[in-house]
C-alpha cells in the first residue's frame, strides 16, 4: 500500500529516456494487465452506472488516440517537407484544424457527456429513495447507518456496506469533520461528502461480489488508509441479514468483560452489550468484516491486537488512543473476542 511499486523503484535511471519513447506502447498493455480488472477498477464495471463511466473512458481514449495519430502524422509530414505549401494553405489548415475542428469536437464531447449524465448519475426523486443507506465520512473511517422506510435508523455499522444485487441502493452521503469523497470505482462515479450537506447517490450492482471503495478527497494524514468494502449479495440474503442485524441479541463472551473494563465501550458500540459509544466505529458483528480499520489491515487476530495496541502507528492521526499499556494478555483476549464477534 505504501511506497513505490517494485517496477517503479527498480527501474534503472538511464533507461528513462528510452522508456519514455516507448511509453504509449508499454502503457496500454500494461494498463490492461494490471488495473483493468479487480475489485476496484472503473474499467471492470459491475453495474450500469460504472459501465457508462467505462464507456466514456474508452470513447475518450479512442478519440484521443485518433487525434494523437493525426497530429503525429502531420508532424512527420511537415518535418519531411517534400512539397512546399503556400502560406495561405497553411493558414487554412490552422483555421480548420486549429479552431473549427476542435470547436466541433469539444461541442460533440460536451453534448455526449451531458446526454450520458442521467445514466451515470441516476436521479431518483426523494420520495422514491426508500430504505436509504446513510454513510458518513469521518477521519478516517466510514459510519454506515441503515434507514427504514420511514427514514429512522435501524442499526449502525462501519467500513462495510451491504447492498442487494440488481436493486438500486440509495446512499445519503454526509461528512462529520472535513470533506471526504465516496468512490466505489466498480459501481460508479465518486460523490463528495461535505460537512453540513447530504448528497444523494444511487448505485446498482449487477454482479454479486465484493468491491472496494475509497475516500477520493484528501482528508488528512491517513486519507490513503480510508477504504471500505461493498458486498453485493442476493436480495433474499440481504433481507435476512437486515433482519438479523435489527434484532439485538444479548451477548456474553470472555473477552467482552476485558473490552468493557478497558473503556472501549465509551467509543465503540456492540449491540446486546453495555458498550454503546458513538465516537468510533460500531463493532457489532465485527467478526464478519473483511478488513480492519477501514481497509488499513487484513482482518486477523494478530492485526486486531496490533491495531489496538498502537492504532496511530498504523494510521497516523487516528482518533483512537493507543492501548499499548494494557497487559499483552488483555489485548490478545480482546482481539480474539472481536475476531469471533458475530
Amino acid at each position, binding site marked *: 500500500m505504501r511506497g513505490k511499486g517494485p517496477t517503479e523503484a527498480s527501474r534503472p535511471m538511464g533507461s528513462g529516456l528510452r522508456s519514455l519513447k516507448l511509453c504509449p506502447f508499454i502503457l496500454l498493455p500494461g494498463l490492461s494487465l494490471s488495473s483493468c480488472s479487480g475489485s476496484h477498477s472503473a474499467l471492470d464495471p459491475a453495474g450500469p452506472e460504472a459501465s457508462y463511466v467505462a464507456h466514456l473512458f474508452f470513447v475518450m481514449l479512442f478519440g484521443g488516440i485518433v487525434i494523437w495519430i493525426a497530429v503525429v502524422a502531420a508532424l512527420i509530414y511537415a518535418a519531411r517537407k517534400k512539397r512546399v505549401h503556400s502560406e495561405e494553405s497553411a493558414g487554412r489548415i490552422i483555421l480548420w484544424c486549429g479552431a473549427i475542428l476542435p470547436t466541433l469536437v469539444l*461541442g460533440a464531447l460536451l453534448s455526449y457527456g451531458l446526454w450520458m*449524465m442521467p445514466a451515470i448519475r441516476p436521479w431518483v426523486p426523494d420520495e422514491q429513495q426508500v430504505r436509504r443507506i446513510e454513510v458518513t465520512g469521518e477521519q478516517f473511517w466510514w459510519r454506515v447507518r441503515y434507514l427504514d422506510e420511514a427514514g429512522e435508523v435501524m442499526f449502525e455499522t462501519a467500513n462495510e456496506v451491504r447492498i442487494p444485487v440488481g436493486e438500486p441502493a440509495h446512499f445519503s452521503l454526509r461528512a462529520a469533520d472535513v470533506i471526504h469523497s465516496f468512490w466505489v470505482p466498480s459501481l460508479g462515479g465518486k460523490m463528495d461528502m461535505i460537512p453540513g450537506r447530504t448528497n444523494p447517490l444511487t448505485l446498482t450492482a449487477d454482479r454479486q461480489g465484493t468491491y472496494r471503495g475509497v475516500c477520493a478527497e484528501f482528508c488528512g494524514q491517513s486519507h490513503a488508509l480510508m477504504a471500505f468494502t461493498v458486498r453485493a449479495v442476493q436480495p433474499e440474503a440481504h433481507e435476512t441479514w437486515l433482519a438479523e442485524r435489527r434484532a439485538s441479541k444479548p451477548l456474553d463472551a470472555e473477552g467482552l468483560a476485558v473490552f468493557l473494563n478497558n473503556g472501549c465501550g465509551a467509543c465503540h458500540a456492540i449491540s446486546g452489550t453495555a458498550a454503546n459509544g458513538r465516537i468510533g466505529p460500531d463493532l457489532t458483528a465485527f467478526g464478519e468484516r473483511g478488513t480492519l480499520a477501514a481497509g488499513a489491515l487484513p482482518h486477523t487476530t494478530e492485526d486486531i491486537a496490533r491495531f489496538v495496541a498502537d492504532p496511530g502507528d498504523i494510521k497516523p492521526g487516528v482518533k483512537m488512543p493507543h492501548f499499548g499499556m494494557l497487559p499483552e494478555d488483555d489485548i490478545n483476549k480482546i482481539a480474539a473476542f472481536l475476531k469471533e464477534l458475530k
Partner: protein
Amino acid sequence: MKSVIPKEVESLWTLFTAPTVWALHFVGCYAAVAIYCAKAASFDFGFDTVRLALGGLTVLALVVIVLSAYLAWRQWGFGSGDPPHDEPTRKDRTLFQGFATLLLAGLSFVAVVYVAIPLIFIAECQR
C-alpha cells in the same frame, strides 16, 4: 433606407462587447436555473418555461454577438488586408482592433453556444 447601424464605431469598448454579452449570458443562465431550482415550489411555472426563456436569451445574445462581429468585420475592412497589422499607423491600429474584436466575437459565439447546450439536455431540477 437609412441604416440603423452607426457608420463608424471605433472605441476600445467595442472590443469588449462580445465577451461582455457572453459573461452576462453565462451569469443569467446559471443564476436563473439556480434560483428557479432552489425555489421551484414557490413559482407557478415549470422548468420548461425557464429553459425556453433562456433559449430566447441565448438567441438574443447570439444576435448581439453577430452584430458586433459584423461591425468588427467592417472595421477590419472586410478582410481586405492581411494580419498582423503591426505598422505604427492609425490605419493599422484600426484594422488590428477590428480583427481582434472579430476573433473575440467568434470566441464568444462559441462560448455562448456551449453554455446553452446543457439547456437542451437538462430537463429537470435535481437536488
